[in-house]
């Protein structure tokens, strides 16, 4: 049997809108993944430490406050510093198109904006995850 993909669904920053995070967490579970969900207001340090201890293959972050340009790259860099550069980092939320190339440049593999079907995110992960 295939070993389940382990994903951390994280809400960095201060915004409390977790509808998207919760829906995607469930969709990942229903796609056979093991989903670690840690709740609201996670600092980059908390996200990275959790990703490492849980040895996840994917970190999926959701942000709706507009702080993505600040927070996503920090998480990517901290993962790299800790040697966890094999982790696939994806992001979702209200993210203007102009910001997407910048975030990808910073190491976020893909950005999912509102209206993206959960199946698209699942497919992306399945195709791009580095299995351990």
């Amino acid at each position, binding site marked *: 049997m295939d070993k389940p993909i382990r994903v951390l669904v994280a809400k960095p920053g201060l915004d409390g*809108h977790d*509808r998207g995070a919760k*829906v995607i967490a469930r969709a990942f579970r229903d796609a056979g993944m093991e989903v670690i*969900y840690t709740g609201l207001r996670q600092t980059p340090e908390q996200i990275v430490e959790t990703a490492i201890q849980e040895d996840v293959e994917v970190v999926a972050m959701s942000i709706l406050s507009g702080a993505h*340009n600040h927070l996503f790259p920090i998480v990517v860099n901290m993962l790299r510093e800790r040697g966890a550069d094999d982790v696939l980092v994806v992001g979702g939320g209200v993210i203007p*198109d102009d910001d997407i190339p910048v975030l990808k440049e910073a190491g976020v593999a893909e950005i999912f*904006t509102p209206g993206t079907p959960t199946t698209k995110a699942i497919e992306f992960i399945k195709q791009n995850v580095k299995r351990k």
Partner: protein
Amino acid sequence: MSDMDSLDRIGKAKRDWEEQKLEKLLAKRPERKDKFVTGSNAEVERLYTPVDVEQLDYLEDLGFPGEYPYTRGVQPTMYRGRLWTMRQYAGFATAEESNKRYKYLLEQGQTGLSVAFDLPTQIGYDSDHPLSEGEVGKVGVAIDSLKDMEILFDGIPLDKVSTSMTINAPAAVLLAMYIAVAEKQGVTSDKLNGTIQNDILKEYIARGTYIFPTKPSMRLITDIFEYCAKHVPKWNTISISGYHIREAGSTAAQEVAFTLADGIAYVQAAINAGLEVDQFAPRLSFFFNSHNDLLEEVAKFRAARRLWAKIMKERFKAKDPKSMMLRFHTQTGGSTLTAQQPDNNIVRVAIQTLAAVLGGTQSLHTNSRDEALALPSEESVRIALRTQQIVAYESGVAETVDPLAGSYYVEAMTDRIEREAAEYIAKIDELGGAPEAIDKGYIQKEIQDSAYRYQMEVESGERVVVGVNKFQIEEQPPKGLLKVDPRVGEMQKAKLEELRRTRDNAKVNEELEKLKKAAAGDENLMPFILNAVRQYATLGEICGVLREVFGEYKQSIVL
């Protein structure tokens, strides 16, 4: 609605029609779907007749506007007397910039202000707190101290406008700052008009900007009720919000149920704190969402009014009619906006505006078309406001009271939503009330289940969202989106540094110490907070003191 005899005849005629006409037609030309449902997944019949509302007693269930149970509205003349308040939620980056936007909106004919705060402010952190990094000024204005508040309302006479502040956990602090600004303008607190959201339970359920645990949070709320009853009598002390519950994915009936269940908890807490129900209940107000299913939304607003009136009269034995009136603000549904073909959102907002007006709202915020992409631009905000003005002045729906009353469908649905909401409230009572039900994750789980079901319906194509899963086009990325100046954080930090250098720090500490002692005891905290604010204690300092005494709330999640 009709006497039994004619109901029987209608029922029989309907059956004949079904057997003789309908069956043949359906055999030849089936309907589009096997099952028709509302936006909230409630089943919809093909045809509604008087039989569907046979239980309806006009005088008892509908009555007259301005009279119990207020199904038809809270004022006798509704919009014939005065149109609803057109109130656009706005707040950007710094107090200076927001102040400019407010003045612009007032010039454009807006009649009330609505302040959006940034997340650090909502969670009680100063702009220079490490957790504020990247968030300062992003979703609203950053307010660190009375200084910022003075700038925010500079040149705006606080005795002339009504101001709604979307602030919850630190509501007492922001209200204190507002009162203090008014003092400086020479306006006494009894002349102040406006609303604070102050609804912590829905923060735990859906919105997430909580600070303190449930018990001290409820105490802060009842302290505000008590203080305002004496000193700020025209202030709406709470806006019990279903908006965010709906945004989190609830159905229309759940929105009513969980909002009113929260309302019950606040009333009970205030009564337990020794207040008389009629002393504070007239100042309670509500805040609902308006979605795309026009008629279901109208029914929802009517059902909410009727159910709340009954709750206040029967459960809490209110005597003052004002205690029984559910007055509400509406915002169109942010989660219904699509990032795809954003101009389509103008149409959605127009439908939602109609729903709110036909449902008898007291005030309305219309979302801007680009909100699924970024903060709204000035042009988008203007279109949103114009949408309200077109409904008000051109559509004709504001010319008579509750025009959809008597529609078999709308009345049947009003009953259905009221019934479903009452069942939820009974279940929540069983669990020990809203705070307990939240602690157990019950309410959150019910909402998540609805949200997930909705998402799956959209993905399977069962539910059509125009431009998203049907009628898609290739699009160019939108232009002219509003960007927050990334230097705002630095500017706020510099202001704070200056403030901490120039204010009387000994006095600040003295007031904070007094507040700390009072928080550990059971005195009303409003006067202490007001004194601290007057000395320019920062929001973060005041909330910090309270955090020390009260601790912090821990989220309850059941997935």
